[in-house]
């Protein structure tokens, strides 16, 4: 199964709606709750990052019986120092983002902890493409 969504920059009213839609699908497929939780927490963090830090982007979800792959892409501005960005507590979030309850600098490390394989392709003035793989313990 393949799902495709777009995510608007700065739209904090609907931020999380894609994660919510995908969570519904995973529940319907009877994926174990512990897997749903880690997949959705990682996805929601990435979705909020598109809203908070990028010019907008897309979320793709590829489901097979033993694995879920998520590709979260945006149109930039990219991350110049990824090691720094992955550090817990590091954040460039604006005041507006902080008022929305984000900007703790925990998102990327949350994503890393919850995914089985994580690949991030980014650079200054470039798109950011995050690819996450989740291996499912039981067939979904």
């Amino acid at each position: 199964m393949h799902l495709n969504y777009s995510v608007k920059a700065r739209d904090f009213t609907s931020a999380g709606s894609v994660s919510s839609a995908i969570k519904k699908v995973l529940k319907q497929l009877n994926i174990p709750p512990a897997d749903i939780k880690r997949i959705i927490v990682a996805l929601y963090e990435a979705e909020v990052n598109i809203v908070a830090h990028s010019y907008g982007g897309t979320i793709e979800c590829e489901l097979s019986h033993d694995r879920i792959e998520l590709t979260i892409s945006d149109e930039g501005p990219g991350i110049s120092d990824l090691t720094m960005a992955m550090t817990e507590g590091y954040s460039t979030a604006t005041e507006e983002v902080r008022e929305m309850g984000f900007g703790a600098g925990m998102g990327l490390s949350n994503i890393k902890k919850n995914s089985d394989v994580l690949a991030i392709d980014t650079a200054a003035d470039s798109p950011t493409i995050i690819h996450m793989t989740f291996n499912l313990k039981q067939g979904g």
Partner: protein
Amino acid sequence: MTLREIVEIVDGKVLCGENDLDRNVLNGFSSDLMSDVLTLLDEDILLITGLSNNQAIRTAEMSDIKQILFVRNKKPNKTMITMAIEHDITIITTTYSMFKASGLLYGAGLSAIY
């Protein structure tokens, strides 16, 4: 501790989820930082927050948290209440500060996660 007891302790108002007030909750977690909440592995949690926007409800939804206490008279709007009802989340509000609400609930036996 039941949600009903929580409401009594913080002199709270229930905005939605009235039918679930007999539900038991083991832990409390106070934060305005949603990514902090998203690190929690436990789900048996009362989220105590002063952050009153859609993302507070979304964060509870994504973390499978079923009850939120909004402190300092933060009033959730209609959209937030609709979202909460859709995901069976009980919303309680109190005029007490986060410090006072957390202190009273901890004193009454609601556990801390860390």
